[in-house]
């Protein structure tokens, strides 16, 4: 499995998991209409200080075999190209070429 793009995407996922709770908290607190506005600004500041790679939007679902960023099904976690290759070897039990 190719390594380089995999590594950076993995790092983003780890960071997103690590900072998730904090991020949610800050975001929620800054939108609270009842808090005084300087506290809201403080929380907004803290939210902006979090590392950029810790958002979930930055992680891209890449194919786990080929690191293809496009055409990756979430159910399988790989692309249809890989599916086709491995299915012709017989790696997926019970998968046959469709014919009806």
């Amino acid at each position, binding site marked *: *499995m190719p390594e380089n793009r*995999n590594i950076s*995407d*993995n790092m983003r*996922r*780890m960071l*997103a*998991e*690590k900072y*998730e*709770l904090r991020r*949610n908290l800050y*975001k*929620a*607190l800054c*939108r*609270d*209409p009842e808090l005084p506005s300087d506290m809201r600004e403080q929380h907004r500041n803290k939210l902006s200080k979090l590392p950029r790679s810790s958002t*979930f939007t930055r*992680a891209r*679902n890449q194919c*786990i075999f080929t690191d293809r960023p496009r055409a990756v099904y979430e159910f399988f*976690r790989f692309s249809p190209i890989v599916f086709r290759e491995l299915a012709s070897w017989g790696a997926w039990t019970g998968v046959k070429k469709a014919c009806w």
Partner: protein
Amino acid sequence: MSSGRLKSMLASAVIAGVTEARARIFGHILNPTGQKSLHKILRKKLFGDKVAEWYPYDIKKDDKLVMARKEEERLSKLEMLKRRGKGPPKKGQGRRAVKRNK
């Protein structure tokens, strides 16, 4: 006409009472005025660990021989490129770095 208005008032009062009772029984948070509230953001379930577990563990990492062979292959490939003069440039000499430092 006024009876119609009375009826609608009664109906809205009844509905409000019912929603309040429901919230009290089940522990929901009410927001009858519809103002922005924290509840919506905080009630979302945490899915960070599912996101982090996208890439599966590579079994090849357990086998030291395979890893050693791979590392050797990588180094030999790098050597071949360097012999041809195609290896990676020194730090600060790449295309972008040169443009930036000019």
